[in-house]
């Protein structure tokens, strides 16, 4: 299934930061939503800011419009405030993109566990993200750092405990 761009993507002024505050607010909301759905569709977990600016997200070749660096930074900052983005380095050149926040992933995983009556059992992280049982679940194929963050969120809610094995990690659900 190919990615369906929102209507704004072909609307030339979408690539100019709007001077009117209300309009800009709508514009930013639309951009944030576009970045998240795009990354989710292409299963992108990390973004390099320089690369991202050249990628199709911010660069519509068809209408010859490109979002300026300043605007890209504003959008990333907006995403960070919403809890969907985390900087990897201090220079803010690379970031983690979480199209679902850790708590949301945690909830999905916990739902699956309880639905299958597997609370009180122990899983390896690999089993959860790559096992046959979870093949149909949305969290199947989730990168390990993201999975770990989600389980940590569950741990805070006392619904799970992360256990360290020899060289890998496991988790027990309650």
């Amino acid at each position, binding site marked *: 299934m190919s990615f369906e761009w929102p*209507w704004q993507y072909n609307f030339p002024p979408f690539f100019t930061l709007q001077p009117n505050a209300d309009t800009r607010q709508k514009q930013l909301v639309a951009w944030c939503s576009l970045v998240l759905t795009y990354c989710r569709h292409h299963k992108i977990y990390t973004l390099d800011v320089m690369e991202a600016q050249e990628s199709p997200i911010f660069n519509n070749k068809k209408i010859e419009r490109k979002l300026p660096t300043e605007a890209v930074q504003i959008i990333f900052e907006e995403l960070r405030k919403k809890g969907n983005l985390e900087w990897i380095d201090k220079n803010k050149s690379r970031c983690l993109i979480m199209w679902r926040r850790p708590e949301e992933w945690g909830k999905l995983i916990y739902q699956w566990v309880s639905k299958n009556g597997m609370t009180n059992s122990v899983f390896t992280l690999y089993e959860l993200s790559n096992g046959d049982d979870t093949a149909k679940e949305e969290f199947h194929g989730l990168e390990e750092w993201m999975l770990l963050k989600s389980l940590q969120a569950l741990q805070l809610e006392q619904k799970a405990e992360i256990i360290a094995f020899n060289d890998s990690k496991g988790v027990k659900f309650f």
Partner: protein
Amino acid sequence: MHRRGVGAGAIAKKKLAETKYKERGNVLAEDQIAQMSKQLETFKTHLEEFASKHKQEIRKSAQFRVQFQDMCATIGVDPLASGKGFWSEMLGVGDFYYELGVQIIEVCLALKHRNGGLITLEELHQRVLKGRGKFAQDVSQDDLTRAIKKLKSLGNGFSMIPVGGTYLVQSVPAELNMDHTVVLQLAEKKGFVTVSEIRSSLTWETERAKHVLEHLLKEGLAWLDTQAAGEPQYWLPALFSELYSRDVSPEEASQLMP
């Protein structure tokens, strides 16, 4: 000497005659009124008969409805004037337009964040039809226009701006004067407009053009594009054709809640 008709008696006589004339006049006038009202009554009965006989057609066919409205207009009857009158009870036309009014408001509200509260009559028409479903009675642009006129009585929120061969329906009370309207008309074909286009088409000063465009930005009706070749373009989402057939996405819908 004998002068006739100057004595006190003559004056009294004259007065008497005047009153008699007046009385007679009154009687005549009353007769006429009675006759007229009788005629009107007959006419109204016929119109009512006609209406009840063709109730189904009036309700169902948009074209028939236009003709019926015209007929009513020529004799000064407004079937929409009240929700309680004979016409609306008989035909349910009042309800029909009220329902339509609500649907128009719904569509306009749902799209407000996209187009700033400005929409072409065609797009509104399409979306209202879609919203009503397949089995509802047909609705024409004429019906929409009537319903919008009724909405005006709720305040100055709704208005219609003629552009080209069609209308833009404005659902937010933004202050738009003739200058703004003319610029909207200019933008109608391409969906955007620039300062020099305004200068050459309307022979305005740069300042006047800029002033109008600034206002449209301020009201959230226009978006600025500074990456266009040459000079900035001012885009009207309401006139952006690719937006036309797009549905409201769930993300957008969730933004509707204030």
